[in-house]
């Protein structure tokens, strides 16, 4: 990603490879999720949503933690590379959080008989994180000096990442229970095809995250370059205006003294 400084396109051999993998991976996941894997004894067909819901939730957290790490490194190293990583990851994190909330609600309707449940720790945690990232991106969109904006956004990014365990604990203690089922993965309840489909979901969502991240990073890098070049151009224009005014005014002064 570091070699994108003089690049004009966001595509590379790596992104093409990831894109082709997704073209194969997404239909394969759909076939496994809807046709080959069995329905669950308790959740029935609603279990099929888990194959995308759980991986998206995990990668939403990964994205926000990446934003936090990028923000720390930006403040420490003053590197635009890290700032662009933080920004790109936050945007993808927002999309993933949004999709987690939507798929969670759809899953909740037949399973819990409600679209939204305030007592569920993970849904409420994701909602608060979603709102935090919305604020982060709102700050990113404010027209201001790119470096100043990046510094401020970094602090917001760090606090968002630090808040993940705090929000999770607070919501868990809040209701002291959760409708969410315990992790089937760690409980060892999932077997064979169901487990394989879930892992396939992790791989597909993971590659999607990396693919989007790479493209968004490169777009972000080029946007900042254009912004910086635009500001530099304006400064030069103003300096030239100033110089020409001085040059033009010099003969008049001479004339005046004669």
């Amino acid at each position, binding site marked *: 990603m570091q070699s994108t400084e003089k690049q004009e396109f966001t595509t590379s051999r790596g992104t093409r490879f990831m894109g082709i993998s997704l073209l194969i991976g997404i239909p394969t996941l759909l076939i496994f999720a809807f046709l080959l894997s069995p329905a669950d004894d308790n959740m029935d067909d609603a279990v099929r949503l888990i194959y995308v819901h759980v991986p998206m939730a995990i990668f939403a957290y990964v994205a926000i933690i990446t934003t936090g790490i990028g923000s720390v490194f930006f403040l420490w190293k003053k590197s635009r590379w890290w700032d662009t990583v933080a920004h790109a990851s936050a945007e993808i994190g927002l999309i993933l959080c949004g999709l987690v909330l939507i798929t969670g609600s759809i899953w909740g309707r037949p399973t819990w008989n409600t679209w939204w449940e305030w007592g569920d720790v993970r849904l409420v945690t994701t909602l608060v994180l979603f*709102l935090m990232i919305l604020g982060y991106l709102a700050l990113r969109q404010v027209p*201001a000096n790119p470096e100043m904006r990046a*510094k401020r956004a970094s602090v917001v990014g760090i606090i968002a990442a*630090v808040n993940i365990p*705090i929000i999770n604990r607070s919501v868990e203690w*809040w209701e002291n229970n959760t409708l969410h089922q315990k992790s089937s993965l760690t409980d060892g309840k999932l077997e064979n095809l169901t487990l394989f489909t879930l892992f396939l979901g992790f791989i597909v969502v993971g590659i999607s995250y990396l693919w989007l991240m790479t493209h968004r990073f490169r777009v972000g890098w080029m946007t900042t370059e254009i912004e910086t070049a635009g500001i530099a151009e304006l400064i030069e224009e103003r300096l030239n205006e100033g110089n020409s005014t001085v040059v033009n005014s010099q003969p008049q002064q001479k004339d005046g003294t004669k």
Partner: protein
Amino acid sequence: MFRDAWLVTKKDLLIEIRSRIVINQIAPYTLLILVLFGFALDADTETLRDTGPGLFWVSTLLVAILAIQRSVDIETSDSAIDRLMLSGISPTSIYIGKTIGLYIQLIILEVMLFIVMVVLFDMSVESYPLIIASAILTTLAISSSGTLYGVIASGLGVRETLLPVLFLPVLAPAIIGATRAFGDAFGRVSSDGWAWLGLLSVIAIVYTLVGMLTYGNILEDT
């Protein structure tokens, strides 16, 4: 460092005492919010008692936004912040000083709000120590994050709209903890309110530390 911080606090409080913006404008707004909640909830005293702890902290947050904006205005008007930085006081001391200043103002507003709420909602307190301990910690979380977010949102031309969007979600866990602790102190919920103080302490400490470490970076560009 703390001596310099205290100077900044004294300066902010002195400005407030002379301008009386907090007392004349922000405090009436606080009372107005509580009265409006009464109207919105149909003046049902039992409902108001049940929701009182939550309404108290929601009102405090809304008032805190005004107090934070006021705290930032003091520094940004007439470029006072430039003179403050040229005075040789470290950004960390400025941060601590402004946080303490905001903290004292919020505590005063909360005391007023508390008295009015107890009277209007006819609430009885079961544990004053729990009320005091949770208010001390939650107000620290609000003032430490508020001081930081106030300066983050300043100088961009969109502070009034940006500050709530950034500030309110960050305090969601603190409000959950504070509401539960207050609910227990008022005898309205059956949870152990003291257990929430641990979480409130962590939130207050984390936000204060992040503020102390990052405030200087942002202040340079204000």
